């Protein structure tokens, strides 16, 4: 039962997480980051800068505070949630990065907010703050099985309603579950149970 599902053959070992390089010394983070840090001490774990993009790495449990502040703060004013997505880093304990791409139509600037979420760890939905996040979070739930709480309509969105498993996870075979079911029914069962477990809020 504890046997790991068959990962497709890889030449290199899976990385344990994104590098998230810290900003270079000559790059000062945007002003609203400082305001955020001052308003919500401890919510921002780190900031990162890479090829022109600023990223805030936030505490997963405080995502609602961070999101509300970023939307309502006058120097941030991120009224548009461009995208919400996730990345799967399997060996890590908190295996998912949930990434929020935010944009401000008033100041015309962007920020990326990233939080680390575990497989069964409940994670607050931001769809109350940005209605746009509704479908994005549904897709994340559908593809990764991130356990969103407080989501108004948490159903699968792209996959059929009775689908088993979460296709975008790294341990989900590219060929789909069909062959896995034939070769290794035990793993198939595990994938199936993973969904049921994720259903528990």
């Amino acid at each position, binding site marked *: 039962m504890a046997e790991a599902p068959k990962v497709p053959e890889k030449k290199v070992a899976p990385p344990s997480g994104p590098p998230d390089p810290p900003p270079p010394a000559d790059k000062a983070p945007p002003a609203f980051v400082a305001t955020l840090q001052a308003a919500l001490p401890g919510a921002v774990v780190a900031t990162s800068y890479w090829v022109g993009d600023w990223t805030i790495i936030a505490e997963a449990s405080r995502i609602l505070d961070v999101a509300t502040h970023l939307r309502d703060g006058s120097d941030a004013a991120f009224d548009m949630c461009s995208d919400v997505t996730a990345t799967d880093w399997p060996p890590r304990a908190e295996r998912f990065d949930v990434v929020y*791409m935010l944009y401000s139509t008033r100041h*015309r600037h962007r920020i990326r907010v990233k939080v680390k979420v575990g497989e069964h760890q409940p994670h607050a939905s931001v769809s109350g703050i940005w209605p*746009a996040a509704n479908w994005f979070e549904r897709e994340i739930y559908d593809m990764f099985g991130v356990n969103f709480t407080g989501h108004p309509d948490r159903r699968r969105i792209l996959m059929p309603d009775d689908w088993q498993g979460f296709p975008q996870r790294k341990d989900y075979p590219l060929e789909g579950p069909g062959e896995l079911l034939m070769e290794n029914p035990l793993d198939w069962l595990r994938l199936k149970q993973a969904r049921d477990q994720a259903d528990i809020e």
Partner: protein
Amino acid sequence: MQPPAVHHGAMFDTDELVINMGPQHPSTHGVLRVVLRLDGEKVVNADVVIGYLHRGIEKLSENRNWTQIILLTDRMDYVAAATSNVGYCETVEKLLSLEVPRRARYVRTILCELQRIASHCLWIGTHAMDIGAMTVFLYAFRERELILDLFEEYCGARLTYNSMRIGGLPLEIPPGWDKKVLEFCKIMDSKIDEYETLLTHNRIWLERTKGVGVIGGPEAVALGMCGPALRGSGVPRDVRKDEPYAAYDEMEFDVPIGTAGDTYDRYLVRIEEFRQSLRIIRQATQGIPEGPIVGKVPRLIKPPAGETYHAIESPKGELGYFIVSDGKSTNPYRFRVRPPSFCNLQALPRLVRGHLVADVVALIGSIDIVLGEVDR
């Protein structure tokens, strides 16, 4: 599932009628299913069911090398394949911190804008067809054909072009091609007026589109709407202006915005975009600089570990790519597309509530979705 609500009118209790619009329906533009709850012909609620065209492009891309992904992006917004190509290539170039030659950026701009006109042609045709004006459809396809011919001459394909490479373009433009593009601009100018004669001041068209699906600017932004659908609500948000890519920083063009936020304004915005696109194409074609068409690209593309999000303005709106590279393998670790149609479609239930069945098709047309992109 909640039981169907019962409306208590003055005298009669009426049941709701649930109808499935799609997945096989003439005006859902692909395989979209909208579950409508009707009170008479009035839409009480709508639930959008998508995923019928899901091919797992994101998952596939994580198992293909960086160049192979370009042709997967063709298959997303298949009526604007070149734009999807540009978006992907620029994201990878950003990860690689690669300089793209100015000539390549200019040609990309031309191709993007041609693609925008082609996509808008398809939109105006199907949108008018949904509302019952069948002739515009054929007229618009006639002009789209000219664009497809230009694309065919450039890259040999008519629908899925695979016409970009990381770091530039695969091919030099054919001799005389720029002249043909300018010629097309001249033809297109008068054809836009032709569409407008048929629709813009047509009383039935006005009655069918004015005041239908009104959404205010802030609400549209909150719902994640983008592109012409958002600009119709009066939000001057255009990635080409706000976060210029390709050669848009060197082009002069206006971003048309609407005022009322209804179907008619979204229509007017796209009509004006036709003209602005022609303006950009003219500037870019006349100003194509000399130089190489492709930059200095390493033979083995393997961006350093890191992640980035890059957005471009596709004909439908903000098309974003979020790509994570682990720096070790020759394929992306995570490949995520932010499809504009997906976000616009999300606003559909909000738009159709309280309108009639006939308006549902008008609104599906007015947000201009392509299901290949929504479902990926």
